[in-house]
């Protein structure tokens, strides 16, 4: 396979055709490490999804998913997060084209979309809690807030991380190291988008249907 051949010839010339974030062996290794992190983070969500799937009918006379979920609310959250995944992708594209200004712009747009997602979710949680749908109310609500809250805190961490990456790009420009950082923060962001797709499918849409 061609891919393996490149691995064997790691002389400086052989890596030139690669995107910038892969051109240094060490950065490339860090990207592999980050993929491994994503695979294990997926297992965290697997456990939380399994818990939710088992407990979602255990409402203990409290609010049911159907009563609780607000369709316009989670539709907006979904649209915002899908769009932010796209703008994150455009940030990677700008990085690969060596366009620092565009890169910073798209990172900022992605962060703003992430912030509005978190704000909407926080608003949803507060509204639920004020209506008596707190985490302590039933097993369904415990598993719901744990799963969706874990995703929301991942997004919050992602926003802070993206901001720190943005600062480094501002100060140092696009180097193999900042290129790798931009690449992996966006991998993380796309991963969170995938997790959200499963949340809106398994939690929200299923909850409204059942």
């Amino acid at each position, binding site marked *: 396979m061609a*891919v*393996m051949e*490149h*691995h064997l010839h*790691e*002389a*400086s*010339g052989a*890596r*030139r055709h*690669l*995107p*910038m974030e*892969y*051109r*240094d*062996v060490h950065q*490339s290794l860090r*990207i*592999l490490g980050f*993929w*491994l992190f*994503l*695979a294990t983070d*997926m*297992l965290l*969500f*697997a456990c939380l999804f*399994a*818990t939710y*799937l*088992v407990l979602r009918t*255990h409402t203990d006379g409290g609010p049911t998913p159907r009563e609780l979920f607000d369709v316009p609310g989670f*539709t907006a959250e*979904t*649209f915002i997060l*899908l*769009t932010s*995944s*796209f703008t*994150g*992708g*455009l940030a*990677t*594209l700008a990085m690969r*084209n*060596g366009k620092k200004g565009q890169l910073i712009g798209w990172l900022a747009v992605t962060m703003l979309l992430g912030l509005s997602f978190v704000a909407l979710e926080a608003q949803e949680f507060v509204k639920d809690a004020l209506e008596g749908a707190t985490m302590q109310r039933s097993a369904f609500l415990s598993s719901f807030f744990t799963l969706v809250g874990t995703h929301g805190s991942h997004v919050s961490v992602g926003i802070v991380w993206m901001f720190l990456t943005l600062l480094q790009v501002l100060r140092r420009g696009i*180097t193999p190291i900042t290129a790798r950082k931009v690449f992996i923060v*966006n*991998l993380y962001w*796309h*991963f969170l*988008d*995938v997790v959200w*797709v*499963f949340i*809106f*499918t398994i939690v929200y849409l*299923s909850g*409204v249907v059942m």
Partner: protein
Amino acid sequence: MANASGQHTAFGPGPGAHGEEEHKHGAGLYIAGYILSLVLTAISFWLALTRAMPLGPLMLVLIILAGLQIVVQLFFFMHVTEGDGPPWHSMALLLGLIFTFAIALMSMWIMSFHYQVQ
């Protein structure tokens, strides 16, 4: 190191080539991925909110649509096929996905006998 010599060459012969570079790096791919993810999401929402099918088949179709969204993110946005060595990351992801579905589905299955332990 490799980066020192490779840093500038891949950005094309000169500043004039930037327009072409952009096409080469494929903004089109991202736009296609975005449109696909919006279309898949719209189908999911439409099927669920109009209750277009009986519950069982509906859940199956929703899960398949969500699976397609993974494919879109991986191939259009996350550049899963790129890299410089054997695709270890793909194997790790595949293993992670197998574990994920195993944990979720087996938990549901085993707890379907839950009448004694509720």
